[in-house]
């Protein structure tokens, strides 16, 4: 699993790096101690940072979902810019080589960001347990945060097996080649 996870993270290293940056920034904002500042590498935290867990509900929610939201907000437009221009609009190297490269890079960047949307499993579990097991969060908060927390929890498990990377590789083949 570790090898698969690290390979996935290295294939999509721009997204992993940027996700780690948002995670680090969130820790700074929430004043959480950060032990390891290395974003990418052959370690279990590749694409994440080694930080201590948040002790308050909102902080834990923000740590679990905030960086993912940021990657999603940035990733979708980039991916769409690449896809729309390459596929429906049909830009080819014969139209403009620089533009073609820009769109390919944009698609790759976008996909890499979308492949790094979820936190480490432990981070997602911190909020889940705090909210739905220990019930430290008010009912309204628990209701509103349920779907994002559930998606984050499932996504974190899937990401630990590099499922999003595999999904996007297949999706790219289907979108462009077939």
């Amino acid at each position, binding site marked *: 699993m570790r090898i698969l996870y690290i390979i996935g993270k*290295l*294939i999509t*290293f*721009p997204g992993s*790096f*940027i996700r*780690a*940056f*948002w995670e*680090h*920034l969130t820790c*700074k904002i929430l*004043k*959480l*101690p*950060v*032990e*390891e*500042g*290395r*974003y*990418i*590498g*052959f*370690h279990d935290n590749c694409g994440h940072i080694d930080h*201590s867990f948040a*002790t308050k509900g909102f902080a834990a929610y923000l740590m679990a979902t905030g960086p993912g939201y940021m990657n999603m*907000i*940035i*990733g979708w*437009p*980039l991916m*769409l*810019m690449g896809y*729309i*221009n*390459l*596929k*429906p*609009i*049909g*830009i*080819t*190297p*014969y*139209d*403009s080589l620089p*533009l*073609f*490269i820009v769109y*390919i890079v*944009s698609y*790759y*960047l*976008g996909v890499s*960001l979308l492949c790094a949307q979820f936190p480490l499993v432990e981070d997602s579990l911190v909020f889940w347990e705090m909210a739905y097991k220990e019930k430290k969060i008010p009912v309204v908060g628990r209701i509103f945060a349920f779907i994002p927390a559930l998606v984050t929890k499932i996504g974190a498990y899937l990401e630990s097996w590099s499922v999003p990377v595999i999904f996007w590789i297949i999706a790219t083949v289907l979108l*462009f*080649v077939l």
Partner: protein
Amino acid sequence: MQKWIIIAIAVAAIVIAAVAIILSTRKKKPADSQEEVLPEEAPAEETSEEAEEESVEATEEDETSEEAEEEEEIPEDELCVHCGVKRKTESSEYCEHCEKELRKTKIPVAGWIIGFAALLLSLFATVQVFLVSSIAIQSANGDEYAAKKCWYSAYYAYSETSSVKDELTSILGTEIPFVKIGCGLKAKQIEAIANAYSPLEAGNSIGSVFTADEDGYVQHNKKLQEYKKTLEVFQSSYNAISTAGGDMVYDGASVEEVEKAFLSVKGQEGVDDVFVYYMICNATEYLDGDNLELLAEKYAALDKTAKATGKNYNWLYYQDYATLYIKMNKPDEAIALMDEMLKNDKGSYTVYLTKLRACMLKGETDKAKALIDEFTEYNDTVDAKYVLDATFYRLSGEYDKVKEICTEAFETYDYIPELHRQLAITYLLQKDYDNAFEEAYAAEERAYYLYSMGDSSGYTDELINTVYICTSLAKKYGTGESENGGNIDSLLESYSQEEVSETAKNIVDGKITVEEIFTKGVCDLL
């Protein structure tokens, strides 16, 4: 396109591999950021003794009470996970000192730069996607139609992208390099033309759709080259035939003589035998169009030659062949040919119209009506549905329904000559010559308008002959007091006897009745 994608993926893979190698070599060194943030602390790889020494140094500066605490033995599970020397606080895994220091861990400069660069890029991407989204939606619509094999609708959607792009440019006031239509989309447009019309039309359109700068793509694209080659072969076949006996057709030669001359070019370089046989059929129709058996013989030879090649030539002659079968009162054969064409193009209005006529000839009214529903299922083109409806009800003899449909259609689609023609025939059959003329005149006007816009599809033989019949009969039997009644003479003068069919002349001369032509057999001037 696919080749470039593969190259791009290969380059990306090399970059990823290089980064991975660099990162793996960096792994042995302590993290830069940690060195920056915790200069007094030990790197991660330092031994526990070294860490202990340093932590002892740190404690010298602390208060004396802490010194006392340091001396007591702390259980392992209560030790700070970072320094491993001091007791962790109640709410954290770290001692107070480490927690304070670790909160200061700096974000690497590269992180700030890359993070905000991504944010800016994303902002740019959002604007770009917003700008080109309307073009992309049109293209996606085209793809959807193409997937359903509704090629005319697909072609229409693809060609609309140019208008959308032009509109966008005019709104923005300038040409933006990020807003352009790619060769890939243009190639799809050409493919739609090939399927909706013919590969010859597609080959002909390449020059107008692609610019000279995009010639590299045209050279590279196999399908486009195929269309161009088909057009070239057709042109060279036509030239060879013209040289061998083109003038004979107009010089009073017999069908046999013309055929012999045309067949002499068979097998020549750049000549396609199928096109030779097709031109023999055309010449036969011109010289002896009423001899349906002879024409059928020529089409059978063409069909045999085309099928022997193993290539698809349906687009070339199936429509004419089916019309011939309808004229010969062989609707089943016509339906079989049209079904074959519908396999490739579900949206062809002319194919549905021919099949509808064949069904009506067979007396299968329900099947004919179902065809219109089938056409509607595959097409959003409401105007064509009106024409099919009007034709169906006229052939069924429900003239009031024809008037109702045409009146409704004219509210939106007044520009369609065929709708006015169907209504003109309806009035003609009801012996309302003034209104028949008015509608025929309107049909002529609409056809001329389309022609002036570069679309000559309105000027069919059926339209020319219908207008001639309606105008001539209005002159004979009408009051001449209708809105455009004063134009009857000038309109008739504009007709040359060559362009009017024998059938039309016979109707005007009273040798055949209008009913014989429009209510029996083919029910039209085919």
